[in-house]
């Protein structure tokens, strides 16, 4: 994965994992790589990898079974929620960008319709 050095690494990996869950590449209840393997997969610091799992657990997107590892949440509602959350984020960024270019709401809608 190509990292952007203006955003903390752990956030970029968290977003990547979220996208994988939303896209269905990671399914509810699926076992995730160990912290060490996650570090190798993304070529990141092992302590950062552990922190990523801690954050994902706090957000209830994954859970740890003692001695067995970390798993994707089985709560489909949660998956739905992060999907909406990320969509909202993209939309806001898009709207903000367009407004900065001087487009009005009506113009943005019109352009979007033409594009879609």
């Amino acid at each position: 994965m190509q990292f952007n050095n203006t955003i903390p690494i752990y956030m970029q990996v968290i977003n990547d994992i979220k996208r994988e869950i939303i896209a269905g590449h990671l399914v509810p209840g699926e076992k995730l790589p160990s912290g060490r393997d996650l570090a190798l997969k993304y070529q990141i610091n092992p302590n950062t990898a552990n922190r990523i799992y801690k954050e994902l657990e706090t957000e209830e997107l994954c859970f740890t079974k003692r001695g067995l590892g970390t798993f994707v949440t089985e709560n489909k509602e949660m998956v739905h929620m992060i999907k909406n959350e990320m969509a909202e984020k993209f939309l806001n960024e898009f709207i903000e960008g367009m407004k900065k270019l001087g487009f009005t709401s009506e113009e943005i809608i019109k352009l979007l319709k033409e594009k879609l």
Partner: protein
Amino acid sequence: MMLESKNIMKKYMMTTAIEDMSLTIESGMIYALLGPNGSGKTTFMKIAAGLTKPSKGSITYNGIPVGIQSKKEIAYMPTEPFFYSYMNVADVGKYYNDFFEDFDIERYNSLLERMELTPKLKTKTLSSGMAAKLKIAATLARDAKIYMLDEPLNGIDVIARDRIITTILENAKNDKAMIISSHLVDELEKIIDYAIFIKTGRVELVGNVEEIREARNQSIVEVYKTIYA
């Protein structure tokens, strides 16, 4: 495990390589030793490896001055190649195996394969990139407690660079510390816990990368530019 330097200073005949450096290296962490050429990174590593003594100050490993005992647990990879020209790649492994109790010949062989180095290759025929990969394989085949790698990514193509980073990450464990010197900050940012910025023989800034980032609201590359520009 801990490596601790207290107010070390190193003077050569005419020049002062290290003015005053106090650092604590703890196990389970990966450190980047950052700074332009001539800032004192290599001298610090040589002192920590027990290859040269500080003119002033002290350096200890687990409370004991760095020396014969610490060399058994500290693996140091210098910037210059350290093998004799008559050796082939396999000989380098044998040589290391004789020298270091913690050397793992199987790990060495698997690293050679990863780095695409054949055992029969003569070291004198190696390109600089191949020699760099051989140094990495020999150093990281040791089961040391501290690894000090001086410029491991210098002169290496992107594909080999990824393999070297993977190998470094495989070796980084809870009971081990890694110190990697580089002037390629952005290559290291994603794999390190701590950044140590060295400027003219002094520690200019040291801290956890995420904390530095948050406190200064700058990427590590930007911090580097602010410090050295």
